[in-house]
């Protein structure tokens, strides 16, 4: 693919009101739940009980609900990280890698500037997290803008590099000598931990995620850049002839998208883990991709989809406890959801 910005799907379909998005997405979700029920039956488990358990333990208590919110923070950020470049047909599958590099950059800041007060340190590590994820995505953006490598391939492959890179640091130079040989960094200074609210694990990252969800549609509909992005999405050839630099948009949107995923990584490593570890994410980057496609890039839809997928993510642990099946079984459910969404239209093509 050498031509920049060629339409490759029907993702940011025009004229999709949020109501239609919700209806479509609700229907798909039910299909997926049904299919996953069959999988549970094969395991010899009662699917109804499984679903009741999941919903009761997440929405049935204040604590369960707060944990859903905690998961929604990285998920919504990772979703906007996909939805923004998707406006000009870029397929960013690299949320997971950008998340990890964001966490890595933030950890560097937290470990080296721990003596700074929180009101300096938190903006500083937020910036670093954004920068890390952004630069990581910019590699793919640059390669795509030059027409060298498809961003779909390069973002996907860079995920593995990013995760291994993070492992290198926690197994090597940044390993905490006091941590009984666990691969993890020293704990962050208190000033580098994002504040949490009301005794739950819901943390300040919530504001980042809300800001992303609100600003994303506003920028698209109100600003000059939003108009130019929609123009590229609508007809890249005409956009080029009207003097819009498509290469620049590819790089900038990949950078910002990656930055948002990096911000999610920063929030997660700082607020939830408080130190750098090799397994920071149960696949937030990939689930974010799923959310973005479920909602077809619609902000309200992304919030709703993130809510449901946060429940499912949390549901893995619940199923492990109540039904004694591996928690990763929910990955099957997410895979089924991805399938029904991809099969949505044009299946024969």
């Amino acid at each position: 693919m050498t031509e920049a910005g060629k339409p490759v799907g029907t993702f940011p379909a025009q004229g999709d009101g949020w109501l239609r998005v919700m209806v479509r997405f609700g229907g798909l979700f039910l299909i997926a739940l049904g299919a996953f029920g069959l999988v549970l039956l094969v395991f010899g488990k009662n699917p109804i009980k499984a679903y009741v358990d999941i919903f009761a333990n997440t929405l049935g208590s204040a604590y369960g609900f707060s944990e859903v919110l905690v998961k929604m923070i990285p998920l919504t950020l990772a979703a906007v990280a996909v939805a923004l470049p998707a406006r000009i047909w870029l397929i960013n599958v690299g949320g997971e890698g950008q998340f990890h590099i964001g966490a890595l950059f933030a950890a560097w800041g937290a470990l080296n500037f721990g003596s700074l007060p929180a009101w300096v340190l938190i903006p500083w590590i937020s910036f670093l997290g954004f920068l890390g994820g952004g630069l990581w995505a910019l590699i793919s953006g640059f390669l795509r803008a030059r027409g060298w490598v498809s961003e779909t391939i390069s973002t996907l492959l860079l995920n593995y590099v990013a995760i291994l890179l993070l492992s290198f640091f926690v197994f090597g130079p940044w390993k905490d000598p006091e941590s009984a040989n666990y691969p993890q960094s020293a704990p962050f200074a208190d000033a580098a931990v994002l504040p949490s609210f009301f005794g739950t694990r819901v943390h300040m990252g919530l504001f980042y995620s809300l800001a992303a969800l609100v600003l994303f549609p506003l920028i698209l509909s109100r600003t000059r850049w939003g108009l130019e992005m929609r123009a590229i999405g609508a007809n890249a050839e005409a956009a080029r002839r009207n003097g819009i630099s498509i290469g620049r948009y590819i790089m900038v949107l990949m950078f910002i998208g990656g930055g948002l995923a990096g911000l999610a990584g920063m929030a997660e490593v700082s607020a939830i883990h408080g130190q750098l570890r090799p397994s920071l994410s149960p696949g937030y980057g990939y689930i974010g991709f799923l959310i973005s496609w479920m909602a077809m890039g619609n902000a309200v839809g992304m919030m709703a989809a993130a809510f449901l997928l946060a429940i499912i993510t949390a549901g893995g642990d619940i199923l492990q406890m109540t039904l004694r099946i591996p928690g990763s079984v929910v990955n099957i459910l997410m895979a089924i959801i991805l399938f029904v969404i991809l099969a949505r239209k044009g299946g024969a093509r």
Partner: protein
Amino acid sequence: MVKDSRMNSSPFLSLRGISKSFRAVKANDQVDLDVYRGEVHALLGENGAGKSTLMKVLYGFYHADFGEVRLDAKTVHIRSPHDARRLRIGMVFQDFVQVPALTVAENIALFLPDLPAVLDKLDILKRIGEISRRYSLAVDPRATVRQLSVGERQKVEILKLLLADAQILILDEPTRSLALHEIEGLFQVFANLRRDGYAVVFITHKLKEVLTCADRITVMRRGKVTGTLAGLEATESRLVSLMFGEDVREPSRIERAQVPDGGQPILELRGVHTPGEGGAVGLKDIHLAVLPGEIVGVAGVSGNGQRELGDVVLGLERCSKGKKYIRGQEATHWSVAHARADGIAFIPEDPLGMAAFPWLTVQENMAMADTRRYSRKKGFSMDWAAVCTDLNQSLQRLGFTLPSLFVPLATLSGGNVQRMILAREMAHNPKLIIAFYPTRGLDVRSALAARELLIASRDGGAGVLLVSEDLGELFAMSDRLVVVFRGRIVKACPPQETNPNEVGHLMTGSGE
């Protein structure tokens, strides 16, 4: 194989009253065509004359709105290319349908209707060998298609059809990207096929080829057949007048109010070359200047470098050699945005594909010409009121009306899209206007308004580069005329010093 080599008295294939419209455009209007066994039949006409559409109807790609197809005097219904192949009609497209990684034999085998589950490679090789010897279609069947030249790939396509037992072969502009000796080879193949009673129909707009190899020639113009001649009675001038119509003869000139006093050219190309990758025509050594207050007409059959010329001026295509100057400044490496900001308006050949954004509203489309002009607060908001005012003013000047400015552009008709693009591009008094077929798709009154506006811009000191196939329009409007053929300027002179007949010949590569 067809044994009967004598031409029957009744036609093998006849099309009767074929009509096909795309939205409001009549691509084919009551077309009749007869094809006999053992004849090479040329379908001649300008681009957009409806030749390809007609052949695609015959091949089942499109469905005719009216009309019927008869094969051996029996009415047949061709609903898909599959039906056509079953009726032994085969077509070679401009862009070949081949798998580059497979060998010639494998590509051919894929196409055969009687392909068995287990391939008998030797048998296929034998059949390819026989046929390629008989019709001088020499290709190494073991070579992968990727290694082949365009001419060889075309032979593979013809072999495919012959092995699949087609009796009517349709070729869509088969000579378009062939070298001279390859063209001669192709015509030899045609002659061999004729000898064995095949019917060959080929589409072209090159007169010379038609006169060398066609037994009969059908000329189309604006969706209609303007005449069918036997190859022997055809002459270049008869064909030119059938192709371009009678109105070419007496163009009514609109004389310029005053002759500009020379001055600095608005646009100057000095020895410009473009690479011409992937089958595209590269520009070769283009020297061209557009003075203020001048309309330079570019005549040529489309695909001879006009698009590249426009793209070079706009800054979309890089010059591999040569320099570009805009109002005296070297502009060879200007970006499109820079050129547009410097007052270059661009009306492309395909407005919906190259200038417009179908799913944005009319108003948003207007803003796209210059998003900076209409953005406020450093880009954080857009001044839609100003956009509408400018658009309405420009529409008013042109005397156009649009149904609404707040609907997606895609809901407008083709003519209205063209009106919108014209209004957008002319809104801010451009200094240089690159106009491709600016009146295509417009009704008579709107076309007149568009022409008047171009002329008014010229009289106001703008330079206009007018690209068209419509010789009447070119002769009526141009102050200077250049003719392009295969990426070169083959003639440049004021229109008074030439005539449509000569230009027609030059456009089709049959001059001198």
